[in-house]
């Protein structure tokens, strides 16, 4: 087995109502130092984590939306969003933030690594992962 594992972070919870979304994001950030192949999957209320326009100023809570935008810099290669979950919540890709990615060695660039996937594609993502983190 190669040293690099494919990590998949499974996010199924809305932000702010509980700490799970934020603390799982902290794992992703720390995990970047380990040079694994990292993807995130947003399902169910987890898709709300990527909705743009968040303003937490009146709650005195940390707004971690800007952190998602930097995930490309932390080595995250894919942010997959479950299509059915998104549609069930009346959302489209336009409602979601964009996350850019660049490979510093090859200078390969991707404008937006937030990708909407159907169940079949998602099954493929789960299958090819080596480790699934749930929070």
């Amino acid at each position: 087995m190669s040293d690099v594992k494919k990590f998949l972070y499974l996010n199924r919870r809305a932000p702010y109502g509980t700490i799970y979304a934020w603390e799982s994001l902290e794992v992703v950030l720390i995990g970047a130092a380990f040079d694994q192949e990292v993807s995130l999957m947003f399902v169910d209320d987890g898709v709300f984590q990527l909705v743009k326009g968040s303003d937490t100023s009146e709650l005195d809570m940390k707004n971690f939306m800007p952190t998602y935008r930097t995930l490309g810099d932390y080595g995250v290669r894919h942010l997959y969003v479950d299509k059915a979950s998104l549609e069930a919540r009346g959302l489209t890709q336009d409602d979601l933030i964009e996350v850019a990615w660049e490979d510093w060695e090859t200078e390969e660039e991707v404008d937006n690594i937030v990708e909407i996937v159907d169940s079949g594609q998602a099954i493929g993502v789960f299958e090819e992962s080596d480790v699934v983190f749930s929070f």
Partner: protein
Amino acid sequence: MADLYTVNKSPFEKNSLEDVIRFSGEGASILFIEDGVYGAMAGTAVSDLVANATGRKFYVLGPDLKARGIAEDRLIDGVELVDYAGFVDLVVENDKVQAWL
């Protein structure tokens, strides 16, 4: 080889079971633990979810089932009872574990 999925939520409370069936492929093993064991009961409004999910194997954690007073004869046909040692075996036998909380 395939994955082991754990479901710890009652299907009457959260859609974890529905998700697991939607996101699991052929050959998947699905283990009900904690409040998830209610999903293994026959004759409920959601029993068909399990009964109609072909190509997957379902297991239920005995100690959790027993704690909730659900007799084995209330299980959906084909759901296999395991103890914690059996849970460990399922983890070992499958490629990885996905916790659908």
